[in-house]
């Protein structure tokens, strides 16, 4: 029936098929690496071999047309070898340094920038948004594109930073991109309880599963117009959208009340300080496509003030810990509100239990 031999449980192809010869030869025997210029690294092996990497930013969503263009460039300059990074950049792997400049010219001519290494802003890891997701509170690719257009000099290296700065974007609290440990996280939020379609609910949803899906127990069984349904205690809802994921009749998406929040100071690396969660800076900004100017301005403001005030090697969260949150809010001009004070589980651990405070001299 089919010309193809269908197989199951074969797993991914073995990675050795895709490693360049220089990598196979020096596997596990690299000595050090250097940044030659923004977006270009050399890794030097104990054998003396030198592997050059050119890092290229992408929008993550790629057409097969583009992937074939990257394949052609890999054939022309890299003996057909390339890789992707954990932040959706493409890396071309070269052994001949004379080919670096021609490769960069060709890849830039296709519209893809070179950069994102060292203390530059790398690509923003992000989720699907309106391109492909049902529970998104906003688009993902459009916000990311708008922010990266503004932060572009920090990617290409024409502007520099004190340390790494990782920006991440998730379009709802499910955080497919796990943005909760980023220097700057942009997070889509719903702010109103779901609206129930009582006519659809009995047809589309299992009520016990729906009730069990709510982390705060806000959903209760109810009979509406003689039919089984549920009611939602709005005061108990924290807009996670978990119910909408199990029951399409609990629609949480809302063009007026959905929006974006901004969080800062997280990291995953263990360097110097331990990994940290990101903390809330702006609880809500309006959903303003196609360019989300309020969000872009806020992110640029945070980056600019960090770049101008942090010490060398200091990540966003390390800088804020040194100067204190009151000073961070004062420098950036964002308002501190009731919403910034945690009221979920273990909230008390975030209250400031000391008299060690920075005061300013009175006038």
């Amino acid at each position: 029936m089919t010309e193809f031999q269908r197989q199951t449980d074969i797993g991914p192809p073995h990675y050795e098929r895709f490693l360049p010869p220089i990598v196979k030869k020096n596997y596990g025997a690299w000595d050090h690496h250097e940044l030659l210029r923004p977006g270009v690294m050399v890794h030097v092996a104990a054998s003396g071999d030198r592997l050059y990497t050119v890092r290229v930013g992408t929008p993550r969503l790629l057409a097969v047309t583009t992937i074939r263009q990257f394949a052609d460039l890999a054939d022309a300059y890299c003996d057909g070898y390339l890789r992707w990074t954990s932040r959706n950049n493409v890396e071309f792997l070269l052994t001949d340094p004379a080919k670096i400049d021609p490769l960069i010219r060709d890849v830039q001519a296709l519209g893809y920038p070179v950069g994102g290494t060292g203390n530059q802003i790398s690509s923003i890891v992000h989720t699907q948004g309106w391109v492909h997701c049902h529970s998104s509170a906003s688009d993902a690719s459009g916000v990311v594109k708008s922010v990266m257009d503004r932060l572009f000099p920090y990617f290409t290296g024409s502007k520099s930073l004190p340390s790494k700065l990782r920006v991440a974007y998730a379009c709802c609290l499910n955080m497919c991109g796990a943005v909760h440990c980023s220097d700057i996280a942009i997070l889509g939020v719903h702010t109103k309880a779901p609206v129930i379609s009582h006519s659809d609910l009995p047809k589309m949803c299992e009520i016990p599963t729906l009730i069990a899906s709510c982390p705060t127990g806000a959903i209760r069984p109810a009979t509406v117009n003689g039919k089984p349904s549920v009611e939602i205690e709005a005061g108990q809802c924290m807009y996670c959208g978990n119910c909408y994921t199990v029951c399409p009749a609990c629609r949480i998406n809302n063009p007026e009340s959905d929006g974006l929040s901004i969080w800062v100071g997280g990291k995953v690396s263990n360097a110097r300080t331990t990994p940290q969660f990101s903390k809330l800076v702006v609880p809500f900004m309006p959903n303003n496509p196609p360019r989300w100017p309020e969000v872009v301005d806020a992110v640029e403001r945070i980056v600019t003030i960090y770049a101008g005030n942090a010490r060398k090697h200091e990540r966003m969260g390390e800088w804020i810990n040194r100067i204190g949150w009151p000073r961070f809010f004062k420098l950036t001009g964002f308002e501190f509100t009731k919403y910034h004070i945690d009221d979920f589980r273990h909230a008390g651990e975030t209250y400031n239990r000391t008299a060690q405070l920075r005061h300013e001299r009175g006038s």
Partner: protein
Amino acid sequence: MTKERKTPLLDELEQGPWPSFVTEIKKEADRPMAHDLLGILERSYADRVSHWKHGGLVGVMGYGGGVIGRYSDLPEEFPAVKEFHTFRVNQPSAWFYTSDALRTLCDIWEKHGSGLTNMHGSTGDIIFLGSSSAALEPCFAELSHHGWDLGGSGSNMRTPSCCVGPARCEWACYDTLAACYDITQAFQDELHRPFFPYKYKFKFAGCPNDCVASIARSDCSIIGTWRDDIQVDQAKVGEYARSGTDIQSEVCNLCPTRCMSWDGRELAIDNSNCVRCMHCINVLAKALKPGKQRGATILVGSKAPIIGGALLSSVLVPFLEMKPPYDDLKELTAAIWELWGEHGKNRERVGEFIQRVGLGNFLDGIGLDPVPEMVMHPRTNPYIFFEDELDDDAGNA
């Protein structure tokens, strides 16, 4: 050639220097799926809401995961994306490819789907965006014929992923590519057939810099480390100092345990107090290297906020040699899956399960002894649930 769509809002996002996802979609828009995707996305930009509905059960025969069902709520207006399912294709370790392999994937996807991808999804898979229900089986047959398999979705082991590791990094403390491949192959059944309480993710990071963010987004984080001393080339430390690196302020003062000192000639390290943070090695990359007795720290439980709040992974095994066939890691994993599989609630991640039952009880359940590395400090409250067997020993110590 389909008629050109008017997309004034999306067209705004083709301006500016960063490469545009709109341009990517337009590159495939001479075919119906990408053409209608532009239409429905433009509508979302005008309406400020998503026009996708979830799931429903779709997939390929014999698998319970790997395909995410997706339907639109505007099927009449945009018929080509009425069904727009996602394939997760298991990526090769560390995302290395040859141009030929990429062309094969492109040919298959152009034939069976939208021609649009994510390189890559957050968990690591190659994402094929947008397939009809009818195309799922033929697409999978052709993928597997060429040696590609699907990744995980739903309540199963999700597709493991790893950093570039020893393939191109001098700091890799174990072979992340080999470990990732081995674990993926060893647990194919768990990857393809969901029977866990919820998802279970592995991420393999070669050193504590954690370039794959394993500590924030994997149920099992395997982070490379070492047991012996940092390797120091004093002559090269001197070269850094002479070429402008302030060793005292940039290295010693930023060491989290202040275990280093610099007298202008020699960098002294109290290795017994080094916590393997990587900062000094990052800054003095030519002069300092991780030790030679290498392995990994195993941490468990990280996740995003839904449902019980975000968690970072915490220490389960302070040091494990990561040598093939990785029996220690596999046995530990089997014990965790057995306990969590039996007692975990529906949609309860292993980190939330540990919070609910307590780490001490979890350790009892998987047969691991408690060690002080597992906590930041011992408990501060006196509400200890003493167990019955202590009665016999009380007073006899």
